[in-house]
């Protein structure tokens, strides 16, 4: 088949997956939060309210999309795209099975981190262009969080890279054939904290802190531009969960089952694991209060960064000792 056609098809598959994920996750969020809060969540529209988000999206598509007169027009239009595209690009490197991956990048992990770090740029654009004080404060918070947490998150992922000996996400998954890397508990915990902040989840949802900043950087956005911002937020959550599954929970693998047996249902296994992760994120969202911005920065600089570096050294030491012992034996 034509190489270009394959590229386009793969890209479309990633796009579709992202949009469908967004719709499903918003529905899931409302259901999960509802159940956590003694409510039912959407019930009336479609069976168990399943069509609710579909209606929401259609409505957002047909809403008027006013441009406030005070905004910086160019940036205002560009910002949702700049937020949306990186989170779409991150899907490219995720291995859904041994063969189901849009682009099998040798530096996949690094690629995901690199594109995800573009998102705050879009958020800052949105906040600045909106010419709204709430938006600006929300955007500044997002950038502050990004600067603080990008480094610890990467360093927290490095022990896994050392254990797998590769930055390729597919290799990392294959290296967890029998033992999931979650055995490296401190690395997992550090990665989760940093990831929660990175993806703007409660208790670190400071960029759009509803009780403080109205709707944060998205305050001035309406209709589908808001829809894009909303979708990409959920897509980020998905990517964070998928990355956690890939790095620590064996990706599409099932422990002690040969890869060939898992292969036909590998994408299903992967999605299932990811959605279990998302469920935990939503449960956190429905329960915990939000930290203050200075507390978040303090946590980042004074705890997470030194601890993650220290744990990286310790992991290296343990691995070195382990291999030395193995050789000497």
């Amino acid at each position: 088949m034509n190489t270009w056609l394959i590229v386009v098809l793969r890209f479309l598959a990633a796009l579709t997956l992202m949009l469908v994920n967004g719709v499903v996750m918003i529905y899931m969020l409302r259901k999960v939060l509802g159940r956590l809060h003694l409510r039912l969540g959407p019930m009336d529209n479609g069976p168990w309210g399943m069509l609710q988000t579909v209606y929401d999206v259609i409505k957002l598509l047909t809403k008027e999309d006013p441009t406030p007169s005070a905004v910086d027009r160019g940036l205002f239009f560009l910002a949702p795209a700049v937020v949306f595209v990186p989170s779409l690009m991150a899907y490219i490197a995720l291995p859904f099975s041994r063969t189901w991956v849009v682009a099998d990048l040798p530096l996949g992990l690094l690629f995901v981190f690199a594109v995800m770090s573009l998102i705050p740029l879009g958020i800052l654009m949105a906040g600045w262009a909106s010419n709204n004080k709430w938006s600006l404060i929300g955007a500044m918070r997002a950038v502050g969080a990004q600067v603080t947490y990008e480094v610890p998150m990467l360093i927290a992922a490095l022990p896994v890279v050392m254990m797998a000996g590769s930055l390729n996400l597919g290799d990392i998954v294959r290296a967890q054939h029998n033992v999931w890397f979650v055995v490296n508990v401190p690395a997992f915990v550090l990665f989760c904290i940093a990831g929660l902040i990175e993806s703007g989840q409660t208790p670190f949802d400071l960029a759009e802190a509803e009780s403080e900043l109205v709707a944060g950087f998205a305050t001035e956005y309406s209709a589908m531009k808001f829809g894009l911002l909303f979708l990409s937020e959920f897509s980020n959550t998905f990517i964070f969960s998928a990355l956690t599954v890939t790095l620590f929970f064996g990706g599409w693998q099932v422990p002690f089952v040969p890869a060939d047996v898992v292969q036909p249902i590998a994408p299903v296994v992967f999605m299932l694991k990811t959605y279990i992760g998302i469920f935990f994120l939503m449960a956190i969202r429905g329960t915990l209060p939000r930290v203050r911005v200075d507390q978040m920065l303090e946590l980042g600089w004074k705890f997470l960064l030194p601890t993650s570096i220290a744990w990286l050294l310790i992991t290296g030491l343990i691995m070195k000792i382990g291999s030395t012992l193995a050789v000497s034996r």
Partner: protein
Amino acid sequence: MPQPDLTVVRSALERAGVAVSIEEVACLGVVCRVSADSARAAVATLRDSDLAFDFLIDLFGIDTGEAIDVVYHLRSFSRDEEIVVKAAHDYDGVLASIWDLLPAALMPERELCELFGLSLLGHPNPKRLLTTDGCAPYLRKFVEIRSDEEVRDRSTQHVNPKRLARAAGSIAAEEPMVAPDAPSATQDGIVAPGTFQPTLLPAGLRRAPAGVDQVTTEHLVLSMGPQHPSTHGVLRLNLEIDGEEVVGAEAIIGYLHRGIEKLAESRRYHTIGTLLDRGDYLAGIHSELALALATEKLLEVESPRRANYLRVMLGELNRIASHITWYGPAGLDAGAMGPFLYTFRDRELLLDILEDVTGARMMFNYVRPGGVLRDFTTTAEAKIRHFLDVFAVHIEENDEILMGNEIFQARTQGLGVFSREAALGFGLTGANLRASGVSWDIRRDRPYAAYNEMDFDIPLSEVGDVYARTAVRLDEMRQAARIVRQCIDGLPEGEFTAKVPKVLRPPVGEAYAAVESPRGELGVHIVSDGSDTPYRMRYRPPALYALQAGETLLPGGLIADAVVLMGSMDVVLGEIDR
């Protein structure tokens, strides 16, 4: 009510050179009448002398037809005494501010001046509080409310489009209510506007200098509200921020000003409750009760014992309902959605009970002068017992989910600390005061209804921060449940209302009655001229005093702190704006 010794008051005031005539008014206590010029000196003397009247209960005006009586209602906690100072001001006169003596006067003075058309002298922020420019001094007797014809035909009201088109932000730039020829120099210890030196409350009203560093920075003025998800109604906070840090704050209120005090002057006594219910809409029973107590004082009627028990029982249920409505959103302010929805399942049960007994979910008009509207129902008893059982479990869950959360503790402990002195100076009452270590509860110290027969504790904390206020309110809910159980177990048989005429015409006089509402001391001051409607009804809004106190603590915190702090003061805008 314990009263100060007349001769001591007279000698103290005369030593300070204040000409005074003192009388003892039934139902009100000792009333000192001084001239407008010496009102400030009189208050200063009463505060600083051995009498130690250092707590401003209330400050309001009465249009007597000849002059405006400015009423200072003072209390001494150390001696447990109360006194009223009245000073007759001319129409269009000048009110000398006492905010530097008693900072609690800050907002009430502004309100008094705009609603009676006085000028304000020596006030740091002499702007209108409740109304916009061009509004008449509504509480003056010459201002008439809309007639029946106007009200029936709504088309008579015209909306001026220009006025609507004006940006909402322009409201802040109000004309100050200072007399044009007001002396600018310092006079008799009164500081002229614009030159005051902040002493106690300063930071809230101080504007930080622009460009604090070498780098030229600009402060952002953030208008939080009146439509904002976390301001608990239509409160507007103008925050001046330097990055995330708040350097100046001003609370702007009046978005819900609907003239409860003015309308009460045209309502018969047992229908004023409908207005008061909508004032403090979270705890209607308490406002009705304050009105009923004041009216009963004037009428010299005693309500029967069964009615007293019902008043206490419903009042305490209402207190739980109100605290619940505060506790959930307190979590919501901090970002936790859970507590909000968990507390509302209990509130539904409570509203079922209240509906069963009073007939309405929120607006009861149940407590009437002389007793209550209708008798207790047997179905309600079962519901209350069920609720008490359920609530005992739920409150521990709610306690754990929010108070036990490390993030919530880290955000609230040490935030917004009121010292004992500051709390008293700003006129804080209720749980806010008790969280600062002052053991004062009207239910215990000035018992009304059947509270002297109840056994309950007063939760107290010495810390005075947001966490302490939350903890005190949680404990109050437990105590309230305890009182309800005592009421339902010991509900006496008998009449539920005393014999009172259908149209109440209290004799000429004045009466003040206060109750411990969920927000603090809720007082009703009635001036009767012998007719079937009050001549003047003043409603002491505890949340107004809490609001102006909270406002001063905002600078120095972050935006997130501002939200949590204002939430912790338990402000209800219906009551503040009236």
